[in-house]
């Protein structure tokens, strides 16, 4: 078999319900009221980026747009603000998908960081054009935390696909 990337194991195909469940959980996490605490990651952007890299045929611009609108309503932000940012994010992550999987998770995080920063920059530009205040530099720290979370996230989200096809009670997973 032709090697696909540096994931040492042959993964099972992703289950669609698991993919959408993880997106919904990430969406619920973004709704936790954290006030203006600095460094809170945008969970949904992270999970969206992850699946757009892993499953570019399943998760792409449309998914980003719809979830972006949901976040806009949930956050009481301008309608289309997150949608625009997430569409650009999923586009970028889709474009990276053929290249980024050859790297280790930590190096992948370095590839994703600019995209996560782009999400914040797009939203700042959109809102400042419409006359809002600059939220302060701490606003961008969220994307760095999110990039750090990429590594553990990588294992959590791929966990069901690590399982072997046949069940073996003597194996841990």
């Amino acid at each position: 078999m032709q090697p696909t990337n540096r994931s040492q194991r042959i993964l099972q195909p992703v289950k669609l319900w698991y993919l959408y469940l993880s997106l919904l959980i990430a969406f619920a996490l973004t709704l936790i009221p954290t006030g203006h605490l600095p460094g809170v990651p945008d969970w949904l952007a992270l999970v969206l980026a992850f699946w757009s890299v892993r499953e570019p045929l399943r998760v792409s611009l449309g998914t980003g747009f719809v979830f972006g609108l949901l976040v806009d309503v949930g956050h009481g932000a301008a309608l289309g603000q997150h949608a625009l940012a997430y569409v650009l994010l999923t586009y970028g992550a889709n474009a990276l998908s053929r290249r980024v999987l050859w790297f280790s998770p930590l190096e992948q995080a370095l590839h994703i960081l600019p995209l996560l920063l782009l999400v914040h920059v797009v939203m700042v530009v959109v809102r400042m054009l419409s006359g809002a205040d600059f939220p302060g530099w701490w606003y961008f720290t969220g994307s760095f935390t999110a990039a750090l979370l990429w590594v553990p996230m990588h294992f959590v989200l791929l966990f069901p696909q690590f399982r072997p096809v046949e069940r073996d009670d003597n194996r841990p997973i």
Partner: protein
Amino acid sequence: MSLIGHNTPPIFKRGPAPTVRLMLYVSAALVLLVTDLKFRYLEFMRQTVAVVLYPVERAAATPADLVLNAATYFATLAKVQQENALLRRQQLRMSEQLMRHEQLARENSRLRTLLGMREELPARSVAADVLYAAHDPFSRKVILDRGSTHGIAKGDAVVDERGVIGQVTRVHPIQAEVTLLTDKEQAIPIAVQRNGLRGVVFGAGAGQLELRYLPATADVEPGDTLVTSGLDGLYLPGLPVAKVLRVDRDTQAFARIFCLPVGGVEQSTQVLVMGRLNLPLPPMGGGEDAVVAKAGGGS
């Protein structure tokens, strides 16, 4: 669907190219943004989605509630006793004021009838708790646990025990969004309590307010109290808003007047939402009746 960086051979029909799809989605998002920010046409759509999202939001708010509740739970007994004593003293003072207030209100209404002025409109008020600060980091907003089912309407004034803290800008059935006075887009018509000079106060960021569009020679001094003027027909007149912090008269035409809000704009957790009862509309169709009604209302 085709992948970015890989042109699909024309024999396979797999939907529009990625760049085309990107352009479509980006323009859709931009159209939504402009419609929402400039024209505010999308409130209905927002409301519908918000109602569907409500259970998720409540579930997501639970961890924050837990943290807050734990904090209050572990407050020491001494602190509670202290607070209790303070509240007792406050209540004593208030009850004395209330007695005087009742008498004054009666006297006031008598005098008003004597003068032939219209009775002051009674206000409706709803007590509410601040659930949490809104997520949007670009604005200063908080979410209340009461909504349109409890009688809150868009435009109502929100006050705490010291003064005005904001205005209800979006109402959902069981929640309401309050834009705080310190928000850059929030304006409130005021009058200087000392001399009745009218003006409009805007949010200036950094917890401050700015009284704009007053000439450099205007009679405003640091320490003046600003109260709502009630001219907008939304706020009740006479609610304390802010105290003037400093006045900068060196600018060309307008004075730059910075104020500090009186109420605990960014701290209050219990608030009162106050609205005016709807004004009776003057009769339609113009004519003599309308003129009379106008003259009566203008006093």
